[in-house]
């Protein structure tokens, strides 16, 4: 941004930017710096809202160092608890216990990765799927019903429930895709509305005798049969086989996008729908297909919740995962393996945030702030470059390809 305004004379005198600074100005560098900036701003919020810091600041001018040291302690303690809650517990006596935080990170990351893949796939086809939340709910409903209603041998039952979850999510995503294809209704509006319809749908189902657990008034279904649960490694760890599904799904989406004809068509439609239509592609069909698959992926995230983590259907089964999935897909730049990495980071923040909340009393909601800020910054590379005075490398943000409501 700054270079554009300087006169040529000055430019000659300026040294060419170092290789390091050029690298930092690239995609990976901007992502890294965005995370750093978000953590720094998060640190300010943690410090200034800490009661101990506020107390010390009442005599700021008498003893300024007290305030600074209280603030530093506050931030260091909080972020230390966040990190140990993400990776490993140094005070644990056994290795299984020590790695429990990592298990939590992966547990939290599993539905985020699957939801993120859903958003990312649609994104590559030029559609913005805000409906992962609703698709997760529908997937959860299907997985739970198959899980607690039937009695089948172990693997077959699990497989059936997972396929059911995919179909449930696909139906919900498919509605948005169908409306887009047939009537041109904008998928952002339809998926937002479908999210809320799904929220009330699950609330209603959980008042019905066929879904409500016997003897319970609160919205909770019977537990899914053990034969439909994702297998786990240790009883102490919550991490379950859903992560394998997530990794396989990432590989599948990567293959679909990079190696298959269908994926090529998706990307062509995403790059320029009119050009794709001129080239003879059936754009409407692509919209329907991509929303079916994206919905199915989000449905799988629902299966991770119902068959792995919660083991029954509840009113809050989606727990905002569908919205976090959007930030995951954006941080992963709509690239399947990027989504896996972003899902692990945000899953870690969720897991670590819980630990931070219990250990230091810092509310976990700061994680949402950090998450939102990271995406905000990576969406605006010129801002990050100007903060760190990095050279302009011309790499425009991928989130700047805006289309209007009518587009």
């Amino acid at each position: 941004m700054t270079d554009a305004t300087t006169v040529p004379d000055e430019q000659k005198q300026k040294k060419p930017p170092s290789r390091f600074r050029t690298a930092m100005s690239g995609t990976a560098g901007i992502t890294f710096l965005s995370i750093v900036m978000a953590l720094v701003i998060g640190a300010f919020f943690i410090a200034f809202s800490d009661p101990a810091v506020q107390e010390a600041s009442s005599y700021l001018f008498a003893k300024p160092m007290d305030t600074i040291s209280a603030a530093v302690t506050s931030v260091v303690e909080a972020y230390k608890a966040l990190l140990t809650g993400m990776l490993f517990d140094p005070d644990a006596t056994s290795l299984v216990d020590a790695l429990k935080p990592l298990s939590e990170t992966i547990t939290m990351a599993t539905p985020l990765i699957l939801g993120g893949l859903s958003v990312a796939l649609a994104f590559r086809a030029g559609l913005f799927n805000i409906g992962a939340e609703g698709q997760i709910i529908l997937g959860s409903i299907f997985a739970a019903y198959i899980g607690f209603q039937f009695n089948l041998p172990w693997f077959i039952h699990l497989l059936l429930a997972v396929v059911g979850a995919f179909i449930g999510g696909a139906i919900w995503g498919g509605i948005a895709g169908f409306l887009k294809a047939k009537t041109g209704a904008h998928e952002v509006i339809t998926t937002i509305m479908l999210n809320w319809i799904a929220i009330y749908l699950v609330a209603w189902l959980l008042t019905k005798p066929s879904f409500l657990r016997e003897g319970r008034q609160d919205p909770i279904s019977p537990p899914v049969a053990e034969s439909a649960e994702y297998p786990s490694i240790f009883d102490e760890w919550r991490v379950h086989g859903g992560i394998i599904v997530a990794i396989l799904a990432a590989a599948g989406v990567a293959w679909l996008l990079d190696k298959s004809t269908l994926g090529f068509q998706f990307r062509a439609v995403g790059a320029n729908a009119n050009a794709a239509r001129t080239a003879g592609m059936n754009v409407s069909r692509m919209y329907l297909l991509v929303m079916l698959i994206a919905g199915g992926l989000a449905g799988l995230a629902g299966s991770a919740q119902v068959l792995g983590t919660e083991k029954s259907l509840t009113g809050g089964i989606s727990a905002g995962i569908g919205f976090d999935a959007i930030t995951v897909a954006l941080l992963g730049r709509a690239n399947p393996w990027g989504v896996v990495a972003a899902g692990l980071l945000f899953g870690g923040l969720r897991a670590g945030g819980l630990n931070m909340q219990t250990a230091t009393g810092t509310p976990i909601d700061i994680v949402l702030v950090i998450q939102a800020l990271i995406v905000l910054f990576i969406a605006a590379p010129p801002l990050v470059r100007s903060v760190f005075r990095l050279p302009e490398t011309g790499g425009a943000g991928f989130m700047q390809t805006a289309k209007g409501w009518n587009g």
Partner: protein
Amino acid sequence: MSVAEAPAPEALPEVHIVPPTPRLVKVLIGLGIFAILVFGFFTPAGKDVTFQLTLGEEALALPDLTLPAKISAIVFSVIALLGAVGALFAARKERPLWPYTTVFGIFFVLGFLSWAVAGNTINLVGLLQGSLLLAVPLVFGAMSGILCERAGVINIAIEGQLLTGAFMAAVVASLTQNAYLGLLAAPLGGLFIGLLLAVFAIKYWVDQVILGVVLNVLAVGLTSFLYGRLLAPNQETWNSPPTFSPIAIPVLSDIPIIGPILFNQNIVVYLMYVIVIIINIALFRTKWGLRVRAVGEHPQAADTVGIKVNSVRFRNVLLGGLVAGLGGAFFTVASVGAFGKEMTAGKGFIALAAVIFGRWKPMGALAAALFFGFADNLQSVLSIIGTPIPSEFMLMTPYLATLLAVAGLVGKVRAPAADGIPYKKS
């Protein structure tokens, strides 16, 4: 659904050879027949329905209206159908539809109530008064959406703006123990989100849908974090705002039925009337409004005649933030009294739905918001009385209605042409 068709004051004269029957009219006729069949046949015979027409505190007391439920359900549904047929003839003769759709709406709802409330009593005045209150944040949110989107910036962050507005109002009103200061501070909360929206959308060209989603996450995160850190541990100092009480406007509030509904409300409701009227006039009757709409429809043309496209957009997005923030005050200083985590609970998205359902027109959005508020309040009233319809389905109404609207069931819904597309001067 009947209320969606608002008068279109800004419509340019168009040349029609044979006026086609609007799809809306077909839908209304279908609904009218549906009403006769369902409400008429499924209302149990021999039961009465009682409509109370007063709250019991008015000077002029109207008697309760007790009707045989089955007959009234049929009669009201038939009148609704006649209204729809009237709309059909009005459309043929190119006369405005709204008198007929209004008749349809009122009698459709009365027919529905005769069926749903059969054997019970419902207070119509209380029902409508509560509906208006529930619509207040929706109306403010929708006005914010209209201000932004008419200038060409998509605003999905209405939810976040309402939430930060509610938060600011609660905190300032608590600290100062003055609800009016809370009301003054609330717009600043919305402005904060509006500012981020404006900077990232207009200066950095970030996709506005993404931006809105992210700003909502940011607003939830920030307010929940500060709630957990400051408000929850010190409820007394930080989170116990005084609330407004209703102010009865002399004379007007004594009019039977509409008096208590419209003119015995708190100051936020009166502010809402003023703001809707101002925005409607400003958008369609002033030079400012013409510029805003030009920027939203055809920014290149606006630029050619010397309108500074991006400054108009920047100002409007900030203005939208202020309005939605003000609406946020409703949650704390005008209703609940204390801030709660994520207390807007999706109202911002219903407001967005109202913008779309009302076709980016202030009066249309107002009508849609009132309709959604009515559905919401009816749901809670009926869940007390006990009804044939599960309350979850009533709560779905705004979303289903919007889904059907954007799918073209009630005519074509079209956003401002340049809505969501950053303007880059070339």
